[in-house]
């Protein structure tokens, strides 16, 4: 039961520098492909990346302001941060489910590094969020919230969330090849998760007895960390972030290994 593919007599192909370089090219070219394909033929183009979150913020802050927002300082900012951070997470996982099933041509390509695909998906969704960031900063400015030194933690938060998304994307993508139910389950779960993530309400609204259960949802701590940096201008609580980063890394390493070990079966299962 052996299977080998030697590239020994082609020094160029086997050098690891080239491999990294190629991986980088795959990442950038595919990311650009996905972004372009999404917006090329729409009139508003990138405007949609702004329009979606903005609309959600308007809806939430008009409907729920009186019910939920009374104790929250500058409620629209509060909601906007939540919507953006959650949106990145949701669309990354939602998109990663169909990574393999939606990229049949790539899966068939001999020696294509399929393990790069989760990075591509998370990249694309990150860029969507990044487009809306300037609008968020303007909104913060208008509400009298100005940058503090704690904002230096923002790249770190992005890295942790990136790890978490990519890490979870690996098992989801490979699971969906074998069991197409995964995509339905994931979309239901994500919807459910959105309501147990404090996007338009404060975690304090949740009865104390249930609150601990809420922290099983990684996005509760994640959204709280973004908010404490952006809205309160203080450093986020470190402990939950270490845990989340650890979980992300764990899934990334293990999930990636499993993904690669499974990848030879992807095409025949489709």
């Amino acid at each position, binding site marked *: 039961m*052996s299977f080998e593919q030697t590239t020994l007599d082609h020094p160029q192909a086997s050098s690891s520098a080239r491999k990294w370089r190629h991986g980088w090219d795959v990442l950038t070219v595919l990311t650009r492909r996905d972004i372009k394909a999404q917006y090329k033929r729409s009139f508003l183009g990138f405007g949609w990346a702004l329009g979606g979150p903005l609309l959600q913020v308007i809806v939430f802050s008009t409907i729920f302001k009186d019910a939920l927002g009374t104790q929250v300082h500058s409620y629209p900012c509060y909601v906007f941060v939540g919507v953006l951070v959650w949106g990145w997470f949701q669309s990354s996982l939602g998109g990663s489910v169909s990574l393999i099933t939606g990229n049949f*041509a790539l899966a068939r390509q001999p020696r294509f590094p399929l393990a790069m695909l989760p990075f591509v998906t998370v990249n694309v969704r990150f860029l969507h969020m990044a487009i809306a960031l300037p609008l968020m900063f303007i909104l913060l400015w208008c509400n009298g919230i100005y940058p503090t030194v704690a904002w230096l933690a923002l790249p770190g938060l992005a890295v942790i969330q990136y790890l978490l998304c990519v890490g979870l994307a690996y098992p989801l993508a490979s699971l969906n090849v074998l069991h197409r139910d995964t995509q339905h389950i994931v979309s239901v779960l994500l919807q459910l998760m959105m309501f147990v993530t404090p996007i338009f309400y404060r975690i304090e609204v949740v009865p104390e007895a249930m609150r601990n259960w809420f922290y099983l949802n990684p996005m509760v701590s994640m959204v709280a960390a973004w908010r404490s940096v952006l809205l309160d201008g203080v450093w986020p609580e470190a402990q939950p972030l270490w845990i989340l980063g650890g979980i992300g890394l764990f899934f990334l390493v293990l999930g990636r290994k499993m993904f690669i070990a499974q990848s030879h079966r992807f*095409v025949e299962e489709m």
Partner: protein
Amino acid sequence: MESRIIAEKVCKQYRPTSKGRSARQHAWALHDVSFSVAPGEMFGVVGANGAGKSTLLRLLGGVGRPSTGSIRVAGRIGALLDLAGGFLGDLTGRENAVLAGVVAGLLKREIEARMDQIVAFAELEEFIDEPVRTYSTGMMMRLAFSVAVHTDPEVLLVDEFLSVGDLAFQAKCHARIRALRDGGCAIVMVSHGMEQVRQLCDRVLWLRSGEVAALGTAEVVAGLYETEMREETLRRTPDGPKRTSGGLDLVPRENRFGTFEVELDSVVFHPGDMIFSGDALGVTLCYHAKVPVNSPVFAVSISKKDGTPCLDTNTHMARVEVPDLREKGERREIRFEIDRLELAAGNYFLDVGIFESDWKHAYDYHWHAYPFTVEGAPAHKGLLAPPCRWQFGGGKGT
């Protein structure tokens, strides 16, 4: 030189996808297949649909693993499998070419350095910055082919590439493939056309339901494959009553062969079965299917009584799109027309047949059942009687 590809006792068994298919559980997609391909060798793979050709190509590409046995492939693999499958309509030809190149294993800067060559080969200079959705299928295939052959593969896996573009472009593809081979690239090519196999391949592997039916030089294996097709037809021909369809009596196994899953009902000559040399001749075949079949191949040939062939053509060779036969019993017609039949005067037979889409066997083949006569002045011997004359020239100056 050492082999680029070594396959040893490769077996492949697919896991049953649903529980109800236990009967097929033990079907081997490939069973005990061994061969090797040297650098600069063109290796053909032939066989009917479902014989394991695509599975083999996929395993060679490393997309999937053999259940047992081993495959070793040395060098960079290029693939002409699903041309233009990964193209995105909204991106320009250039963007798609970069994408395809990177996907095939090149670095971005390497593919960009070759872009001019790629575009020139695909003959798409004017269109390369247009979105691919404005391309015709032929243009897309040309671009995809061009990218694939410019990635300097050391092993090239080809799935019937010759349907790319028009005849001139096909000739170019041939030349390019030969150049790659001469440069030391090992090429594995799946093909249905025995002529193509004879022309291009050095050695050929014939797969029959996943097992090696033959492995040897192209000439020998192609010959065996064609012979089996004829024998398979004979074996499958059922006994049946005599019938006629506008010509002589048709007797199964005597002048009528096939499985009769598709039947020829009538064969009608236009204007009739006696024409003058150089006249037009049309033949209308009426047929119906008894079971649904995928686009069958229609063949027509004209031969003399002793069997000397004068004309032999079919819808496969002529690249005619034949519709699938889905409706049982629905009667259909196909018409074959010759503008000028410049045959010498004499008696001829028209042989007609409907074949399985991969030439596995005949559905209904009528041999020497439709005689016709060509009238004309007996001014010469031989097969042809085109308009011709003698003329004196020269000698004016004396």
